[in-house]
């Protein structure tokens, strides 16, 4: 029973970060119909950002998020404006191939600059885990969990309560109707892409103290991210949150009760089953 609750808790902790990455991908898909293969590399950027903060600027990685999220927002604006904008009308498959190229470019650029060494971030306060109710909770993961929840709530509030958020959701539901109602669809696309990029990068900063970082880490993360958004239904924000938590829990239960080496495979098997039998996602809210 203790192992069970332990794995549920650690699953939810990791899952909250998966959810944050997934939300980024799903809002981008919703508005622009782009499946962004380079999304994992934005997470990788965040991880290296956290690493640079502590190694050179001596800033705690969790505090450094206030630098990296706005920066990633501008990187997102730049990428969309100068790289993606002209590709999007060429269709889903072309953008898929294009972003795959972008992903390879970014990952190998970082490989050239930072070498392929595995790096870790060591925090002074991260040595002993917290033990509420006898369940071990690593401190960095707990902080990351808290911040991920705050950021996700803030995003949700933005999407539901603000005018820009409403315009984004309208564009996602029906771009032509939204344009007719006076929504600047192009501007919404830029904002959404930048927002998705910022979320991925922020999740990277939060994940960095709990994972190894290396330039091609994005490859694995983006694959997981697809699992999450397909589980929740492509284009659905609540779906991505649920999908992220679900994947986190399934992985950690799988590692305990099935096998550690196959824990990553479980996610992909579920992914295939959902794609085949419930293509609009487990909760039936996505559009396929």
């Amino acid at each position: 029973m203790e192992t069970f609750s332990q794995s549920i808790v650690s699953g939810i902790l990791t899952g909250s970060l998966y959810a944050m990455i997934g939300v980024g991908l799903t809002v981008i898909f919703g508005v622009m119909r782009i499946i962004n293969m380079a999304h994992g590399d934005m997470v990788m950027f965040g991880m290296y950002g956290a690493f640079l903060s502590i190694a050179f600027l001596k800033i705690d990685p969790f505090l450094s998020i206030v630098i990296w999220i706005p920066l990633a927002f501008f990187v997102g604006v730049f990428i969309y404006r100068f790289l993606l904008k002209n590709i999007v009308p060429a269709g889903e498959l072309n953008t898929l191939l294009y972003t795959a190229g972008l992903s390879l470019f970014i990952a190998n650029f970082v490989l050239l600059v930072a070498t392929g060494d595995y790096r870790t971030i060591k925090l002074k306060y991260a040595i002993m885990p917290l033990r509420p109710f006898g369940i071990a909770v690593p401190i960095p993961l707990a902080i990351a969990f808290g911040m991920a929840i705050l950021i996700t709530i803030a995003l949700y509030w933005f999407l539901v309560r603000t005018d820009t958020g409403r315009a984004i959701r309208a564009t996602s539901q029906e771009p032509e109707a939204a344009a007719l109602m006076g929504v600047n669809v192009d501007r919404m696309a830029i904002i959404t892409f930048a927002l998705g990029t910022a979320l991925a990068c922020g999740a990277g900063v939060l994940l960095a103290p709990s994972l190894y970082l290396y330039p091609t880490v994005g490859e694995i993360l983006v694959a997981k991210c697809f699992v999450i958004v397909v589980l929740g239904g492509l284009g659905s924000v609540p779906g991505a949150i649920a999908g992220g938590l679900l994947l986190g829990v399934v992985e950690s239960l799988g590692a305990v009760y099935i096998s550690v080496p196959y824990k990553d495979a479980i996610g992909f098997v579920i992914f295939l089953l959902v794609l085949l039998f419930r293509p609009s996602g487990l909760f039936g809210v996505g559009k396929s």
Partner: protein
Amino acid sequence: MKKIVIALAILLLFTAPWIVSSPFFVHLMIMVLMWAVLGASWNILGGFTGQVSFGHATFLGAGAYTTMILYLKLGIAPWYGIPIGGLVAALIALPIGFICFRLRGPYFALSTLAVAEIIRLVALNWESLTNGPVGLLITTLPDVTFWGRSIDWENKIPFYYIIAVIALAAIVATYIMSRTRLGAYSLAIREDIDSAEAIGINTVQTRVAALSLSAFFAGVAGGFYAMYLRYVDPDAVFSIALSVEMVFIAVVGGLTTVAGPLIGAIVLVTFGETFRQILLVGHLILYGLAMMLAIRYMPEGIWGKLRLWFGARD
């Protein structure tokens, strides 16, 4: 004119190692031809039927492991192992095709990525068969006599001729496909799958057939890869990066064309390997860049663009 060019190209293909015989150059040409086979393999599916697969490393890996395991455990010479590897890859493609082709467009692409990752994890963990992450290693290749002379496997030139024959076969297969019903059905599917269905084309069967043919060549190239490097491990032959490289070579060279993948491999692999000689890591940066430029400025690929310029019909 066209026949003369083709005859010259084939002559050049088989005399190249005698013209320039430095080991690096022979190695480079072997890599170019191997990637041309992989690009051609991807083109058979991605170019003709328009189905983007991000999981072709599965077939490469299946071929590589089959050849390796047959040789190490059963003593079957790679001479037979390489084509058997191709057949195994083609067989594996059948269930994958029947499952994944229920999905369309980007969803198909994502499902192939998932299948490839599952198979990589299986290869990583099925230690009794694949030796897990340690990989399989062979030290010597069996003696083969060819026209009364025994072949020196320490030299790269025999490998060059093997891959040259395989590359020629892949290109000829693409040409034949483009001239037969399978090719025509595939193009119809690429243009509009619903219309193709409506005029009575069995779209699932056609796509599975194309995938299987494509997987055969990827498997053969995989078997060759294993014998040439004499080593396989799951991350070397089943990685997502390998699948993506195949896509890039086919797209940059020119989809749906017969010679496109060869051109793509010549350009990308030459630049990539030269880059690797200088900087060791990160040569894929060029692939990424080339891919972005290709999609943006010439989605028909290098060969497709050249054909447009010369106004050639075929």
